[in-house]
């Protein structure tokens, strides 16, 4: 079974394309990118735990915030400490909705990675 990787298979490609559109006025901050890669690793772990089916990544053209949507069956947590909570803490916004297939969509919005040149 092919297991999709959040950064390598989706987010990295979207961020590269966004960086091309935003240049030469904006450039990616390598430190912020590293932090964002850690968020993606955490989302990979969550995806494994909650039987994730797909990722969707978007960059807002105005605010430059990055939205990651994970499609999964459900989120069930029995502990006070969890990676899911850590991601919530670091997101600008987060939320839950349903997909057309009737699955759960978990959305995290993270701050921009780009600095003005």
């Amino acid at each position, binding site marked *: 079974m092919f297991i999709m990787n959040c950064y390598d298979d989706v987010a990295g490609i979207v961020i590269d394309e966004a960086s091309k559109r935003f240049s030469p006025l904006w450039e990616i901050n390598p430190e912020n990118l590293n932090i964002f890669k850690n968020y993606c690793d955490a989302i990979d772990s969550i995806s494994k735990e909650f039987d994730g089916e797909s990722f969707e990544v978007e960059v807002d053209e105005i605010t430059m915030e990055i939205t990651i949507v994970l499609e999964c*069956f*459900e*989120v*069930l*947590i*029995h502990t*006070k400490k969890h990676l899911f*909570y850590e991601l*919530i*803490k670091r*997101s*600008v*916004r*987060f*939320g*839950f*909705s*349903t*997909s057309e297939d*009737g*699955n*759960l*969509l*978990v*959305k995290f919005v993270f701050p921009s990675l780009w600095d003005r040149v």
Partner: protein
Amino acid sequence: MDNFDFEKEFQPDEEMDAELDEMIKFIGEKLEEKNSKDAVINPDRMQLVLQVYRAVKCLTKGTGAKVTYILNEPYIDSGCVEVIGKDLTFSKSQLFLDTIRLASNFNVYAKTDGTVSMDLTFNGLTLPFEI
């Protein structure tokens, strides 16, 4: 190979199903036994459910989400705060985390009517009553 159990690996499906049925029956009996015992309300836990209900109401203000609380269901010592909405979006991360960490379980799932249900379950709403 770790934890390889030959007997279990090649066990017929019917036997496995019967074993699982037995296990579920056993858990059901245990819960029924617990439910039928005399108990008194745990005021601190009850108060906590109501406080979480108020906090969730505040977090979902203006989103159109429906917030309800259920006490002593499905078992006498449990209850939950349930949030149902089409699109549940939150921006007050810290308040949200402080609130959901008070619950025993946090569960979010999609319902068949296209809405999302976010359940905060609480255990220990009653204390055993002994003379």
